[in-house]
């Protein structure tokens, strides 16, 4: 896999940096200005609002009715829908980028969803919590219970996250379905990129979440 250099967050004003989530800022920086973007699982529309400030034509899908209505009330082009069932309605190449931010682990069929992302969009940007993060491992190893963190506080019996994976698992899936990783970034607990010169297993250990810019691989 190719791991490119982590670039500074160009184009994001310092004033904005505080009000937006670290992974959102990173995602926004991966999207070329002026492009057309679909945000799958767009929540309250924070990322779409950030993208709009960068002149990006953003659309969203959100599962929860409350989330959709809050987005629409912000003037965003968001529809109520389910990543597992509604992506099939979108035509091929409809978007430059399709973003799946912190949602992959909540889908019923992550592999099918990932394939759809790269059918609808020429690029996909996927971020997810890394279950290989050291705090997770420690809780399972020492505590003997399913891990819970600040960002994933739900208990095992009421979590919406049914398909957790590690960064290593995700990389394997991408290889399996012939997805090219154009850029990969692991963010630590404080939203800072894990230094690039460290070996891959360190990422999988110290990355609290992974953010990947993907494109369709060449034919195998």
């Amino acid at each position, binding site marked *: 896999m190719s791991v490119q250099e982590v670039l500074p967050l160009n184009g994001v004003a310092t004033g904005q940096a505080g009000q937006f989530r670290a992974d959102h800022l990173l995602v926004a920086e991966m999207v070329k200005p002026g492009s057309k973007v679909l945000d799958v699982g767009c929540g309250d529309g924070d990322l779409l609002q950030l993208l709009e400030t960068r002149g990006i034509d953003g*659309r969203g899908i959100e599962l929860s009715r409350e989330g959709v209505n809050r987005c629409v009330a912000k003037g965003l082009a968001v529809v109520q829908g389910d990543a597992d069932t509604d992506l099939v309605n979108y035509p091929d190449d409809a978007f430059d980028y399709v973003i799946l931010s912190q949602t992959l682990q909540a889908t019923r069929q992550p592999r099918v969803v990932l394939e759809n992302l790269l059918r609808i969009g020429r690029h996909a940007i996927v971020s997810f919590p890394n279950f290989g993060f050291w705090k997770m491992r420690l809780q399972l190893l020492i505590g003997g219970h399913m891990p819970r963190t600040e960002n994933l506080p739900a208990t095992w019996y009421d979590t919406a996250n049914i398909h957790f994976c590690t960064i290593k698992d995700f990389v394997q899936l991408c290889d399996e379905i012939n997805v090219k990783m154009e850029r990969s970034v692991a963010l630590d607990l404080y939203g800072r990129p894990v230094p690039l010169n460290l070996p891959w297993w360190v990422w999988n250990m110290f990355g609290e979440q992974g953010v990947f810019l993907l494109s369709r691989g060449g034919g195998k």
Partner: protein
Amino acid sequence: MGSVTSIPSPAISADDRSHEVDHPSSQVAHFGADQPLRLDCGIDLTPFQIAYQTYGELNADRSNAILICHALTGDQHVANVHPVTGKPGWWETLVGPGRPLDPQHYFIICANVIGGCMGSTGPASINPATGKVWGLDFPVITIPDMVRAQAMLIDRLGIDTLFAVVGGSMGGMQVLQWTAAYPSRVFSALAIACSTRHSAQNIAFHELGRQAVMADPDWHNGGYADRGIHPHRGLAVARMAAHITYLSDAALHRKFGRRMQDRELPTFSFDADFQVESYLRYQGSSFVERFDANAYLYLTRAMDYFDIAADHGGVLAKAFAGIKTRFCVVSFTSDWLFPTSESRALVHALNASSARVSFAEIETDRGHDAFLLDVPEFFDISRAFLHSAGKARGLTSRDG
């Protein structure tokens, strides 16, 4: 016993109603022989007139015009006192100073539909060829016919592109027809509680209503006007049946439950013992004061025929291919007349066309009628959608 078991006679005479048909208390655009309205049934309607209301001022670059399309039994009196009933405008919850559609920011137009009975040419109008009321000689009209007539009015007003077309129910159908027929003339579209085609169940309800009208002996095969009468009993029953479809079980239960009307015990008769009966009778009798029975037949028929996909080779997405219009689709959870599934099908087609679309389903127990009522979440969404579209359109209004 007879007097209490039937629906009360209308308080307003047929004369008051028929006066509005030909001489409406609003602006009127006349279209002469040089500008016929080409109808889907193949007939050129000429001459004809369109009665319309406007609120606010058209700006210098003519970019702030909003067309409101009214529903089946609505009319052009959106935000002013109704000339027949004396009641407030039917959409004053949405339209007015400080409201999402604010005349301080927008030039708001609403026209009575072709086939209606509040001043636009319809079956209750005088047929100039005979000097008598059209009645069933009036050609059958469609939703596309209504929209074609509105486009002629918009031309007459010197407006090229509408900033927004807004409507609920049959009005929403017209909104969608506008975007399918004149995509470049509609900058944004707010389609509420509607569908791209009338369902079998909805056609069935309309047929029930029409049969109620036609079963009234005063209907006289549509020729009641010449006899100076009106089939108000049949029309009232049609309205009562339709009104039930606009509500929901939960709303009826909350509003009336099984409560009695001004009595403690059942009368063991067919009097209106229950509040819900009394309410429905009132709805029926007040409706016939302002609406023409034949117009009800024609407009329900127009809705029945509506099917945008059928006009585009059966593929709905083709109707919106390459469209630049910004859409906002709104449905209500308890609306079983135009359920959310219908809106979702529309949204899927718009997605397949890569159209810019927002879609919100609003939680309410008030049924289809919710779009006419005070539902703050609906207003927030309408306001934000128009505000966002206004920014994209370069409208400089403060908060419109």
